[in-house]
């Protein structure tokens, strides 16, 4: 659990402010899509239960679709979760560091996240394209082309990369994380 830093007196430059707004809009829109995915999963599973017990005609494809929707939910909501500081970290040692030390750990955390997003984007894209070339289909009843489902990984990676760049920039500029800044639009949990 991250303890939020005191608000910095350093002002956001126009470039960082613009990046922040873009990331906020994209991350919120992606999370909204994830929310739709969750409600759709709820509707589909509820419908499948009714079909099985009432009409004795269980749709066989629902299990597959909600699995894909789960991947979409996770990849689409991961960036907003990062902006809100909700990805869990072990900060028992970091908490004991000076303000300068904490700032550099934030830089390190953002760089590490960026490295992961680079793998998600490059490796995810390559894997999707390989699946496309090979004409791979999903296992099960649907037999959808795998490659466009695999694209969820690099797409989520891009969103997460933008949020990580913003986090890195804010840390380098001595600004508090978006989770504690006024424009994070943090809702009460």
């Amino acid at each position: 659990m991250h303890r939020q830093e005191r608000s910095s007196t350093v002002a956001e430059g126009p470039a960082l402010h613009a990046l922040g707004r873009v990331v906020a809009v994209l991350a919120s829109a992606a999370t909204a899509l994830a929310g739709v995915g969750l409600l759709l999963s709820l509707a589909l599973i509820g419908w499948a239960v009714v079909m099985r017990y009432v009409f004795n005609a269980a749709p066989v494809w629902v299990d597959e679709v909600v699995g894909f929707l789960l991947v979409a939910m996770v990849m689409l909501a991961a960036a907003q979760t990062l902006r809100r500081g909700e990805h869990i970290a072990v900060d028992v040692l970091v908490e004991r560091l000076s303000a300068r030390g904490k700032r550099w750990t934030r830089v390190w955390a953002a760089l590490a996240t960026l490295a992961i997003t680079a793998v998600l984007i490059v490796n995810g894209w390559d894997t999707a394209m390989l699946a496309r070339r090979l004409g791979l289909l999903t296992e099960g009843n649907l037999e959808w082309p795998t490659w466009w489902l695999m694209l969820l990984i690099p797409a989520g990676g891009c969103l997460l990369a933008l949020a990580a760049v913003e986090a890195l920039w804010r840390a380098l500029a001595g600004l508090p994380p978006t989770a504690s800044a006024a424009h994070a639009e943090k809702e009460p949990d």
Partner: protein
Amino acid sequence: MTIALVFLALLLLLFTGLPIFAGLALFGGVLQYLTQGELGTVTEIIFGEVNRYLLVAIPLFAFMAQVMIRGRIVDDLYNTSYTLTRHLPGGLGIATIAACTIFAAISGSSVATALTIGAVAIPQMVRYGYDPKAAYGLVAAGGTLGILIPPSGPMVLYGVTTDTSIGGLFMAGVVPGLLMAAVFAVFTVASTAVAHRHIRPEPRASLREAAAAIRKSLWAFSLPAFVLGGMYAGVFTATEAAAAGAWLALFIAVVIYRKMGLSEIWAAALDACRVSAMLFMILAGASVFGHVLTKLRIPQQIVQTVIAADIGVTGFLVVMMALIFVLGMFLESIAIILITTPVIVPAMQHLGIDPIWYGVLLVINLELAQITPPVGMNLFTIKAITRAPMGQIIRGSAPYVLLMILVMAMVMIWPQIALWLPGTMIGG
């Protein structure tokens, strides 16, 4: 030696404060590159690990709990519990445990249980003259029942990781969960008799009063009965039970209580999505880490170590529980499940350990992790609610650490405490 070095290096990396998912993926990725010379199709592994129908239960249970909280359906729970227990010594404490137990059967999360019940119970207990320290400890510990009493997010993850029946695991958590609640209640009565002699029990509620209180919370009681009863009777799978429970929660909040509009439903859905993103990104990172450990044949090395040490089932369980207890002081419970479980499954199979039994022991240990410093999520939760000094919260929770170890030892000695109920399941 290799195993110890790998895990030590991972722990050191995680202590640098980077998100756990990034730490696991980075460590696994670097190890993969150093040992295999390439990253391979790591994203395919991540996709395959998250794309599982069974895991959909987690966001749906999170959504169900959010609906119950935002719809204020659980608010009556505490008053009902207190009306029924107020005549007993330590009645308010028992009411707090009872409310935690019932809410645990709704939420599947320790933090949500401690947060929701604590916000109501702690001020009330302090107002009635309880030592604040005792109130903090009771709610921190009572909240941990959230992951032992089903539904339970950690149990779903453990079940998927070990290919164990999630319905069976859920049922196996019921008796140990109730036993734990009973042990907490006995301790509360005893400690109230000793330390809070000045608190006089209130008059017993009349039958009419008790009936009215129960009627008020009937809908809150109906949800766990519906979800768990459906799974026990073999009507629902875990994922279906989560969806059916979420629909019932929506019906109660929107139609019966009329306390939830579209904006609240939407907020609950977004909240459940972010919790899921946090959990499953750790799962994604752990899948990369687990993949490379398998390539390095570390699970097989553990089996060989177990055979060479000849420690038997009890020795293995004691060593594992001690290790997880230590990890629990520093790591979050989801990370502990995903880091430790895949590597020890072959050793468990070799020793013939029932995965449901081990799962319950693991979850009790993860409950301990929520209240053992320096990193204990429920300790942080109580701190967030009360702003009390952390030392006071830790001292208040200390007796419960011992009580939980006692219950864990009981389940270790008598596995039937956990295994009896799943054995009676229809189709189980």
